[in-house]
């Protein structure tokens, strides 16, 4: 028992540390989805965020610059998605894939142009922990939740803010109405297009930030495949969390938990070939989808464009 508690605390702390990219990317997906805009470019936008997040910090000597570049690139990607789908009425999945290609190509291209090909990749200093006074002294919980880096606090607080915004304000009601029934929302004076632009851009920013977390906290450098499907898993998490900010935050513990667990077992041995442990997060994601698609209710107009001049919406 004496062994168990510190071990559990160590594990739980890592899990909370690992929720950040899932939470941010998933909340970004949720925001767009709630207005009917289904972004499927997470993986690419996160890669670009990771690349620019690293390069910003590497070139200008401060993680803040990296964050700024990553968030900015995400905003551009979101703006592009909104423009092509909302203004030009092009297929959301096709445009999402196109943005995925672009951002993924650009991420490596920028890195190669700035850093070139090196034997030893340059490193940036990773984000320091920021223990919260008093709260971090609480036994067990203090170590798990209040002795983390600033992005962890941001991800949690922002999720709570989104919950408040969506469910406790009239703006949130309008936002949700756009995804449930754009025609009704439109007839009540909600600007459907503007709402979709807003959620696409903010959503993109969150995805860019999610990507920047990876070099800034995990690796200190950028590599081409470093997002490792977390962007796609974030879509799964969004479904799993029923397109609701609070449940997404809770659900992220599961996805982050599987990720950390797979790494832990790998280090610990146990005779399971590591290849099967590497599959674990993805298999777990597929399994959760079986449950998620049974009980979730996605926004009714998810993935569908709205044209106010058209009578029907199919």
């Amino acid at each position, binding site marked *: 028992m004496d062994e168990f508690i510190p071990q559990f605390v160590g594990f739980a702390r890592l899990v909370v540390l690992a929720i950040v990219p899932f939470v941010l990317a998933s909340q970004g997906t949720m925001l767009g989805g709630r207005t009917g805009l289904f972004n499927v470019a997470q993986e690419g936008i996160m890669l670009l965020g990771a690349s620019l997040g690293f390069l910003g910090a590497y070139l200008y000597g401060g993680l803040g610059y990296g964050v700024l570049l990553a968030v900015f690139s995400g905003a551009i990607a979101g703006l592009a998605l909104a423009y092509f789908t909302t203004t030009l009425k092009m297929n959301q999945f096709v445009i999402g894939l196109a943005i995925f290609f*672009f951002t993924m190509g650009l991420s490596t291209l920028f890195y190669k142009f700035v850093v070139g090909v090196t034997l030893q990749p340059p490193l940036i200093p990773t984000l320091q922990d920021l223990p919260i006074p008093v709260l971090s002294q609480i036994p067990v919980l203090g170590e798990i939740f209040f002795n983390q880096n600033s992005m962890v606090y941001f991800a949690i607080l922002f999720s709570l803010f989104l919950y408040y915004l969506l469910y406790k304000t009239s703006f949130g009601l309008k936002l949700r109405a756009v995804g449930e029934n754009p025609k009704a929302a439109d007839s009540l004076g909600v600007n459907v297009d503007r709402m979709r632009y807003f959620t696409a851009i903010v959503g993109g920013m969150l995805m860019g930030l999610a990507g920047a977390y990876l070099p800034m906290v995990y690796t200190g450098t950028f590599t081409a495949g470093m997002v490792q499907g977390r962007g796609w898993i974030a879509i*799964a998490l969004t479904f799993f969390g029923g397109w609701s900010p609070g449940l997404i935050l809770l659900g992220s513990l599961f996805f982050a938990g599987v990720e950390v667990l797979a790494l832990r077992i790998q280090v610990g041995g146990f005779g399971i070939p590591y290849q099967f442990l590497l599959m674990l997060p*993805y298999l777990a*994601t597929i399994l959760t*989808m079986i449950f998620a*698609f049974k009980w979730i209710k996605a926004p009714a107009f998810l993935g569908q464009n709205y044209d106010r001049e058209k009578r029907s919406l199919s």
Partner: protein
Amino acid sequence: MTDTNISTNSKAKAIAAIVLPYLLAILASFVASGIFIAIMGFNVPKAFATILFTSFRTPNGFIQTLLKFIPLMLQALAFTVPLAAGKFNIGGEGQLIVGGIGATAVGIIFADLPLPILLPLVILAGVIFGGFWAAIPAWLLYRFGINEILTTVMMNFVSFGLIDYVATQIWRDPAAGHPTTIPIGAGGELPMLISSPPLHSGIILAIIVAVGVYIYTNRTSAGYELIATGANPRASKVYGINTRKMFLLSLIIGGGLAGLSGAIEVAGYQHRLIEGLQSNFLLLGLIIGLIAKGDNSAVPFVAFFIAVLEIGASAMQRTMMIPVEMVFIVEALVLLFVLLSDVIRRR
């Protein structure tokens, strides 16, 4: 003006209406990326000459292009067939890998069988394994309604673990530095058409399959049901088409095509399973499929064009130090402009 004149005239116009937007899209993307290359301080005419003409300067360049063309076209078809039914197969990578594993397994286990028996088995194993890998997401869609984009992508990541296990644990080649299996039996290798530079007969197989896919989707009633499902699932259902079954079927066919591309890579090119054989074929396949707007008669031509760009891009990286990713941006721009030309025409 006589009647025949009018019809040839309108036919030429129809062809121009299809080809012209493509040419303009290619031109626009080259201009846009040319500006980017110039800003980076590279020689733009030399870069474009390298990208466009490397495939046609030497016999070797042309053969390399054909070898690239095979998996790219099959990957594109693996995407466009389900797309016809309105489903997005983003799992071609995993299906290629698992198809490759199936082909390799048969090629190693039955290594002593003669060619007329082993080769068909190797190819068939690739198709079946690839189809099986797609059948899992297809079934999850059929049974639980789970979004196929998510599950097909997840299956890619699962396959990465699987190929590593096969190449490092089951049939590991100890002499190779990189995770690689031992070679398949000689009877499982696709015969060579030309020996130097080497071109294997997989190209013939791939073209036959492409023609077959085209005939299926555009010339048969079964294919018509597939396209009707994609065009209007609700109307198709009312008409009596089992749309859920069409989703299932289209994804499994897509998986089989991707699996075939894996089998051809193994049986024709490498004669063993090498980790990373999937290259970036999935993404290029998606781009090809989307540039072709899902039209299976256009896929082979677009695939050849992209293969030319890819071979040119690697030459450009070798001789001019411009990263290969540059051409990826060019391809994405072509796609974007092709899509935009649709929007413009609609107005």
